[in-house]
């Protein structure tokens, strides 16, 4: 017989996955707005931010009710606690997407600083981390979560590289300071998105194995 709360828990998980797909889409559209100089895409991201915020509040309400109405234990309790944290991470990813979309609007008022090479690589990597952290959550797949954690260092290295390169451009030509600075912000936001995906992957460890792997060296994960 299906337990009463299992239905509510399944619904809660569904809503988190919905929220995940909303922010995934927002990130993808925001970086495309930068690379393609597409103002419409940027505006779309900004207009859809409300949906993500509303969804965050709905999920918080569901978590509150699950905690108040059911005496959750063990794996169920860990799942609901982790979902509460994942919800916050997803909302922050949504915010980073908005930041990137705003940068896109400012960047397209200037001539292109340079061909985009590392930035698309960085966005692909960050997007794959978000996607895989959510897939790891769906499938309760610790190996997939581990792979997300390992990609975070790669993302940080790309960010450093982009910072260095853009700084050089800025030093050479003060006319590009403004758009180059915006591109640095985009890289910074992508790096933060990777951090939130890492948090989600760490929560998958917590859900599946009951192990808290936050704040640990990678080799101990």
């Amino acid at each position, binding site marked *: *017989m*299906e*337990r*009463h*709360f299992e239905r*509510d828990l399944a619904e*809660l998980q569904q809503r988190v996955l*919905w929220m995940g797909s*909303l922010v995934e889409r927002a990130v993808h559209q925001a970086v495309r707005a930068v690379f393609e100089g597409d103002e419409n895409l940027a505006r779309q991201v900004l207009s*859809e931010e*409300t*949906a993500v915020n*509303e*969804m965050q*509040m*709905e*999920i918080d*309400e*569901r978590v*509150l*009710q699950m905690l*108040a*109405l*059911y*005496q959750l234990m063990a794996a169920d309790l860990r799942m609901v606690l982790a979902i509460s944290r994942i919800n916050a991470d997803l909302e922050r990813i949504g915010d980073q997407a908005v930041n990137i979309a705003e940068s896109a609007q400012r960047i397209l008022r200037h001539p292109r600083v340079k061909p985009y090479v590392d930035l698309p690589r960085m966005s692909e990597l960050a997007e794959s981390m978000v996607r895989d952290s959510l897939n790891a959550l769906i499938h309760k797949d610790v190996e997939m979560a581990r792979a997300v954690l390992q990609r975070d260092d790669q993302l940080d290295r790309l960010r450093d590289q982009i910072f260095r390169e853009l700084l050089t451009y800025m030093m050479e030509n003060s006319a590009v300071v403004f758009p180059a600075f915006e591109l640095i912000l985009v890289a910074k936001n992508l790096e933060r998105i990777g951090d939130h995906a890492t948090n989600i992957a760490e929560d998958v460890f917590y859900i599946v194995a009951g192990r808290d792997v936050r704040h640990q060296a990678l080799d101990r994960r």
Partner: protein
Amino acid sequence: MNSTTATKEFPLLKVTVSDRARAAPVTEPKIALEALTVRYGRRVAVDAVTMPVYRNLITAIIGPSGCGKSSLLRALNRMNDTIAGVQTSGRVLLDGQDIYTPECDVIALRRRVGMVFQQPNPFPKSIYDNVAFGLRINGLVHSRAELDERVERALRQAALWDEVKDRLDRSALQLSGGEQQRLCIARALAVEPEVLLMDEPASALDPISTAKIEELMFALKQQYTIVIVTHNMQQAARVSDFTAFLLSGVLVEFSSTPQLFTNPADPRTEAYITGRFG
């Protein structure tokens, strides 16, 4: 079914966001209590309670011992009539008809509003005869085949059929406590009531049997309107759609269950559900 939920549509994203997660659906009231008062001699057990009992939903009544929960429940099918010295005033409307008028047929009322008690109380008869009892004395069936069918249906509704189908002629007293309670639910369901009153139906049962009864209630509300009295707040939280908090016979708060357990309106409710009472 209406809903108290406010929703926002985001058509481009194919998503609707709701402001309440498990929002209580609202249906028509099946029963309406209007200033219901129950007195035992000079003592007031239920003090002018006015509240609805919504159709096809589970309403829980909670409160400390002696707060009048069981007296209120028993007033809903006039079981208090059987206790000497009880005086009832106010109105209880079942589908709009006052059950306390002299014209009300109490036997018919109790067939429409069935009851399950705290202690499983099967008759010392076979499993089959327990379920068939109400059907026989009320003359509700006309053939053995029809009786068989109604007994099976009631046992299936009570999620007991698979466990007892091969031993229907055995004594009901040989069943476990949990099975006996589900048998009593089957006995109540056999006469096809509209409302099921449950007075601490799981307090004498182990956790597994309790879970079974709770899931059963969840399934039964599709067809019945259920009122449950429980001193177990967690149980009220788990199973009910609406909760009434009673204190010294007074209805302190009646709210949707998620509302009452996450953000109660009255400080006394808050004190009670957080265990800070007294």
